[in-house]
């Protein structure tokens, strides 16, 4: 890609950010959503987060991992345990990293 093409791509991506983040904020008119759409929307954000998250943990190179020697699994298990215990997000991150980094660096998982 030439610098010029990269520039056009970036401008388009920025427009996509503005467009998607303000999509339902654009119109001044009252927005009437059907009842089932409103009920369905309750489930969508969590679903989007889970859909981004789960493959990051249990897949590598587009395939389900087939070994338990993966630092990510232990990091997520430790983070989950911390969250059930204390419910803090910062602690969840730190606990997971405290498990992940030694396994990665010393055992190469």
């Amino acid at each position, binding site marked *: *890609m030439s*610098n010029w093409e*990269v*520039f056009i*791509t*970036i*401008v*388009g*991506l*920025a427009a*996509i*950010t*503005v467009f*998607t*983040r*303000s*999509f*339902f*904020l*654009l119109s001044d008119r009252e*927005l009437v*959503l059907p009842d*089932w759409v409103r009920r*369905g929307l*309750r*489930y*969508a*954000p*969590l*679903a*989007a*987060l*889970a*859909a*981004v*998250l*789960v*493959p*990051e*943990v*249990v*897949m590598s190179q*587009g395939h389900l991992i087939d070994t338990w020697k993966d*630092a*990510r699994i232990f990091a*997520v298990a430790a*983070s*989950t345990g911390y*969250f059930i215990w204390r419910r*803090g*997000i*910062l602690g*969840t*991150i*730190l606990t*997971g*990293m405290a498990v*992940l*980094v030694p396994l*990665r660096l010393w055992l190469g998982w």
Partner: protein
Amino acid sequence: MTSIRAAMRHPQFRAGAKDMLGVSLGIGAWGLVTGVAMVKSGMSIPLALLMSLTVFAGSAQLAAVPLMAVGTPIWVIWATALCVNLRFIIFSAHWRPFFMHLPRMKRIALGYFSADLNYVLFMKRFPQAREGEGQIAYFLGGSIVNWAAWQFPSVVGIMLADVIPTHWGLGFAGVLALLGLTYSMLSDRSTTFAAVIAGGAAVAAFALPFRLHIVVAIAAAVCVGLMIDGSGGAGRRIRNLLADPGAQPRGDARKTAA
């Protein structure tokens, strides 16, 4: 401008900033990794800075950067980013009651700064749109911290891409931040169940192009959610199972439903 300054003096502004500071470590690690990834893919430093400062969407950037590196057609890159950002369209429907009293340009500006974490923390704190609670002040406090916690590490990553090591798992801090957020959003059993369905569907549909597996996962979870909410027989059985998961084998659930 005066209204922004007034909002900054509101106590909710500090509350929003403080809540966001709690997750800023994860945001920062993610921003750093994104900055490094842009430059390592061969992008020049000025263009990487432009991308970070204008696109301001980590998952879309991380999805687009490898495609740009191999010369994918521009429309495919845009389609991919649109799919990854579809969740923001859903979020914007939720923002609407909170922002509608503002003029359109302000709504668009607030929308631009409303990333995932703003959404999660805000909706947890304010289930209903109400005047006089300082909701916009809370939003601005969180947004400013979120913007800084993302942009500064991202710029550092762009500038120091060649000297920052990432093999020890720096990028996973972003995933863990997302994990903590997801857990804190699991409000009841039916949303938890729908989230599990979404995770499974995302893995099963991962091979789809343009990261469409995210759209498939959302669709699956919404269908299951509507089934649980609705009055159909299958949904009722699931609802009964979720209502009392301890002592409900499938046969019993059917009996209670009938």
